[in-house]
Each structure stands twice: as structure tokens, then as C-alpha cells.
């Protein structure tokens, strides 16, 4: 029943190939969360938290499958689904909520990354000025459209790749005993850690918006799942390396485990690798902010038929103001926890949509519409 409720057509020259779904999904998932998630997930299940990552990964695969079913059944994007299920007004409200949520994702990533720079490299950094420049750069990408952002995603995955090799250095002096006894935590502890890891996995739900831009949508399914799988594996490896390198009591004293791990990397020509790692991370973070902004500003565009540019300017100003107002570690930590929780409920919303869609379809068929 591909009757495209409130459907629209994306011109072919704006589309991306199905392979690119991999990069879009993966690069939106990996962001600032990865720099310090090890400490937070270990709070619940201790060093069994690596199982939580697998659990969370499987859950994300399931949600991704649901998203694909939803989109295939409705043949549009999130806005069409909402309009189809809830009508114009309630659907419209939900759309706006999603728009704000995507903006929140961008904000969290931006502010947390600026904090990392403040703590590790330049304590005197002027937050709003840096945010302004970074956001202008993001503006330039977003205005270029999804294809340009996709290019950036591809680049960011390539640039982030070498950083994975440096996991080897801490492994050399780690102690595998830290992982034992395995599977000691209770199921509820493992699930609570899996919930804490939500923030690191957020981002794949953007598929709800860029789906119409994918050229061969059937083939993209495989690539989206590859993307999620790759993300899960990277988190799994990162967590295990950190758990082997630090013991459990020590990890609780370390805010950014991944950056601290880079400290042990030592080359004759480069003594302090973490600065380079943080520098490269600017490229990993950029597509996060761009995609978040793009999705956030796309929703009003679809709803009110206004130019995306104007919404984008508004959102940029909001991001700039809020990120300058947040000025200490506590608030940033609270922002991360808040986004983590909100994100968790947004993910829970996907199965709800899925079930509603299922019921709706049954009802419509019965009435012969």
C-alpha cells in the first residue's frame, strides 16, 4: 500500500546511493558519547557492562527493523507517518517535538565537545566564539543539502578510522583479569547499563527523515544494519580495552576514558597523542551536528512549506545562545544525562508507532479503504 500519504517526491539529483546509509547511520551514532561512555556504563553492571553494549546493539537492530517497516508501509518520512496516524494537529505537534529533540542532540554534541577542548587543550577558550565558528561551518554544510552532509559523514568515518588502531597501545600493558569474573552482574544491572549507553547509540532514528532521499531503499536496509553493527563493535572494543587498561575503582576517577587512553600512545615524533586525537575528533563531531540540524530544520520545512534556511538560522541562534549559557561541568553532565533519558523515551516511542501503524492498517483493510 504505497499510497504515500501526504507524500512528496525527492528529485533524483538530491538523492544519495544506498551504500551511503551505512555512513549516515554510523557517523550520527558515534559522537562525543564515545569519548567517555566507559565510566558511565560501568556504574551499573560493573565490568560486565560490555554485555550491556551487545544488548543495546541488538535492541537498536530491532528498532531499525521497525523503522524500515514503518517507512515502507507509509512511503514517506516521519512527518507523513505522524500525519497519517494522528491527523494534522496532533501529528503536527509531535513533529515539532521531534524537531526540538534533534536540536537537543546537536546541542549536547556541540557543548560537550567544546567542553573537551576547554578541559584538555585551551582552558581560556571563548565558548560562544568557538561555537559560532563551528556552527557557521555546520550551516554551510546543512545549506548544501543532504548530499553534502553525506560526503562529510564519509570523510569523518575515514578520518576516525586510524584512531581505532591506537587501541593497541593500552592493550599491551593492560590486565585481562579485570574482566573476570564474567557475567557476574544481574540481569537488571546489565539492562540498567544498557539504558545508560543509550546516548552513544542515539542517531539512527534520523533515518525516519532521510529515508526518502535514499535512492534504492530496499538495498539500503542492509547498509543501515551494517552501520549499527559497526557502531556496536566499535563500542564493544573501546569498552573492553578501557576495562582491561583501568581497574574498576580507577575508572571511576576518569571522566574521559578514551582520551585518557590516548595519553599512553607515544611516538618518537609525537609525544602527546591526545591533542591529535581531539583534533581529529572535531571531524567526527561535525557530521553529528550537521545531521541533527538538518533533520531538526527539515521538519518545519515539510510542515509549513517555509524555506529551510530561515528555520536553520533560528536554530543556529538557539544553539549558540544555549551553549554559551551553559558554563560548568555540572550542567554539562546534567545535559548529557537529560539527553540520554529523553533519547531513551524517544526510542521507546518507535515500537509504539510501529504497533499503531499495524493496528491502523488492519482497520483500514477491514473497512476496505
Amino acid at each position: 500500500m504505497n499510497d504515500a500519504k501526504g507524500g512528496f517526491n525527492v528529485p533524483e539529483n538530491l538523492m544519495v546511493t544506498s551504500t551511503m546509509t551505512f555512513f549516515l547511520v554510523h557517523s550520527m551514532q558515534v559522537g562525543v558519547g564515545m569519548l567517555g561512555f566507559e565510566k558511565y556504563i560501568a556504574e551499573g553492571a560493573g565490568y560486565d557492562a560490555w554485555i550491556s553494549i551487545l544488548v543495546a546493539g541488538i535492541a537498536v537492530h530491532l528498532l531499525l527493523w521497525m523503522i524500515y517497516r514503518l517507512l515502507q508501509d507509509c512511503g514517506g518520512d516521519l512527518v507523513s507517518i505522524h500525519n497519517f496516524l494522528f491527523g494534522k494537529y496532533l501529528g503536527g505537534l509531535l513533529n515539532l517535538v521531534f524537531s526540538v529533540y534533534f536540536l537537543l542532540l546537536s546541542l549536547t554534541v556541540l557543548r560537550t565537545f567544546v567542553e573537551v577542548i576547554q578541559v584538555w587543550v585551551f582552558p581560556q577558550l571563548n565558548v560562544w566564539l568557538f561555537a559560532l565558528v563551528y556552527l557557521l561551518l555546520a550551516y554551510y554544510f546543512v545549506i548544501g543539502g543532504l548530499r553534502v552532509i553525506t560526503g562529510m559523514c564519509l570523510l569523518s568515518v575515514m578520518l576516525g578510522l586510524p584512531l581505532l588502531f591506537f587501541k593497541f597501545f593500552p592493550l599491551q600493558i593492560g590486565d585481562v583479569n579485570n574482566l573476570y569474573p564474567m557475567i557476574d552482574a544481574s540481569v537488571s544491572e546489565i539492562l540498567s547499563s544498557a539504558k545508560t549507553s543509550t546516548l552513544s547509540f542515539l542517531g539512527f532514528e534520523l533515518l525516519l527523515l532521510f529515508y526518502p532521499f535514499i535512492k534504492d531503499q530496499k538495498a539500503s536496509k542492509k547498509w543501515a544494519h551494517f552501520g549499527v553493527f559497526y557502531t556496536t563493535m566499535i563500542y564493544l572494543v573501546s569498552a573492553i580495552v578501557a576495562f582491561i587498561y583501568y581497574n574498576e575503582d580507577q575508572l571511576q576517577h576518569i571522566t574521559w576514558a578514551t582520551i585518557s587512553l590516548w595519553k599512553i600512545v607515544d611516538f618518537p615524533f609525537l609525544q602527546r597523542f591526545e591533542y591529535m586525537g581531539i583534533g581529529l575528533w572535531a571531524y567526527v563531531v561535525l557530521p553529528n551536528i550537521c545531521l541533527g540540524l538538518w533533520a531538526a530544520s527539515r521538519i518545519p520545512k515539510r510542515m509549513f512549506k517555509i524555506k529551510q534556511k530561515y528555520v536553520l538560522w533560528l536554530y543556529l541562534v538557539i544553539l549558540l545562545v544555549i551553549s554559551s549559557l551553559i558554563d560548568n561541568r555540572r550542567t554539562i553532565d546534567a545535559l548529557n544525562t537529560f539527553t540520554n533519558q529523553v533519547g531513551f523515551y524517544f526510542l521507546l516511542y518507535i515500537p509504539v508507532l510501529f504497533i499503531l501503524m499495524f493496528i491502523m492498517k488492519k482497520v483500514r483493510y477491514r473497512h476496505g479503504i
Partner: protein
Amino acid sequence: MEFKKLSPIILAITVFLTGCIPHQSVEEVSLVSLSGCDYVDEELTECTVAIPHYGRSKEEVPTEQYLSYTAKTMKEIDNGLESKSPRPIRMGKLSVALYDEDLAIKDLSDIIDMLARDPHIGRDVQLGIVGGKTKKVIGTKYSENQTTADYLLGLVEQNERNIFPKTNLHRFLYAYYGRGIDGYLPYFLWEEGEVRMEGLALFKGGKFVHLVTNDEVLTFKMMVQNFNQGVQAIELDGEEVAMENIGSKVKYKIEGNKDNPKFVISVKMNGVISEISDLNILETNKRVKKIEAAFSSFFEKKSKNMVAQFQEKNVDPLGLGHLLHHRKGEITQEEWNMRYPDVPVDVQVTVDIIQTGISS
């Protein structure tokens, strides 16, 4: 089109942005390579730093400048050192940090916390304890073609390839924060313009509590890591026999349960006979067997003796509590402190002599 409008703005911002953060080039800061802190009295601490000044040519050995300041807190010392220096002091290239014995006996916790917190300090900084004053160790020129920092770093690295176990800031912090495990650092001694490594200082938390002397270090390393260096000499039937270690492997086993554990440390060492007074005696296989047995019992006796000393002082550099926690289940530091002194520990050493050199 969009880009044409935006590009001048972006370009302008990139140019002006470089002025946003006060920064200094390498020539304009004093990069500390070596630091040391000494105990003065109950309240005061004196810290000394060495700052190399690089000349124009590559071959030239940098001259070192030494600054000292005495104050109560590290922050005051920082300010005091700045007040003596013509350029801002930066700790980014610190490679060796020394503390004197008295300070270490008092407590190093504050200093360790500061090192752990500072993002500019690498995790591979070499820490060390000095018997005597660090000021003397830092202020002495040991070599014509090396700075003192490079010299000390070389000294430690050379010895850690040999019989000393590996140490650095990360390893120390690992033990410092971990439960059921205590840290150790190399112990230096300065005598008449010469510095040498004199053993390992064992820490309980941030306090120096026990010294492993030089003749015990090889046995200690044998118990904490696999390695393939070092020579040990023993007396056998009135003769001096020396064996070179060419590969030693250590394994920890826990027998019994969490509440009644028994630790078994088993070491397998392969060796080569490097020195023996009368080579002819070595002709028979029987003789080799006897030497093997002699070395085994020598190492076993020595290591059991050392472990007993550790237990007496309630310091656990081998990380037995850490191991118990991970293999047999949750144990708190307090619980371990109570039980460690009475826990049975057995050491089994198997020595295998593979070669007896090129002469027989």
C-alpha cells in the same frame, strides 16, 4: 552561490580566531623536563625543576637551568617558581618526577592526585623516590652529552629492561586507585656525584612503607611479570655459580574459596649458566640437575621470605587481593587489609638450565 557569499566571512573568522586564545610558542615558554620535591619540615616542601635551554645547533647539548622554591602548597610553589622564571613554566614535557624519602613516608596522596588530574601531564611520566635530597640528584651533571632528565630516564629504562619491573605514572595510579593492590616505584640513591638505582619503594596508598633491596629486585620482578633478563649468583658446594635468566613465566593460582583462599605463585624459569669456577664439574647431567634444584630452592626461599615481609607490613604489591576480587568475587579494601597478613601464599619455582655456554 551560497559559498561565494559565505567564504569571505569564514576566511575572515579563521584569520581573526587565531588571536582568540593566548598562546605561546615553544621558544617563549620554559618546558620542565625534570622535577623533584623535598621534605623540609612538617609543613613546608621544597620543589626543584630543571628546564633545558636549547641552543641553535642540533648537536649542542642543552644547558639546564635549575629553579627551587619552598612553600606549603603545590599551588604556592607553582607561583613561586613562576616568579623566578623569565618565561612561563609549562609541565607538558615532564619526563621524570622525583620525591624524597621523607616526603614519601609522610604521604604523597596530594601530589598523586594533582598528577592524575592535570591533563598536561603524560601517563608515561617516570616517578621515583630518592634516598636523600632530590635537589642534589637534579642539580648534578652526570654526562657531558646528555641532560640530567635524559640521563635519569635512560638509567631507569635500561634497568627496567634488565631486572627492575616496569613502572610509570599509569601503572602507579592503577595500583593506587585499585583495590587489593599496592604500587611500587624505583628507589634512587645519590652518593658523591653519582646516582644509582637502589631498589623498589613499596607504597601503601600514598605512603612509602617498605623497601625491596637491589638483591631482591630480580626475585620480585620474577613474581610480577614475564621477562628474560638478569643474572643471579648463588653459592653451591663452596663454589660461586651464576645463572642468566633467558625466559621466566609466572602464573597465579587461587586454591580454595573466597573466604579461605590459598595463593600459589608458580614460576618457570629457563636459564643459562654464565659463570662457574670449575667448568669441568659441569660435564655430567647430574651436576646440572643439582644446580637447577639449588636455584629453585634459592628462589623459593627468597620469595617466600619477601612475601612474608610484605604481609607483615600489610603491603600487597603483587596484587593478590586484586586477583582474588576478580577471580573469586567481590572483596572490599578493608576486608582485604584485615585478611591479607594471614593469607597462605606458596611460591613454586622451576628452574630449567638449557645451556651451559660454549665451553664445557
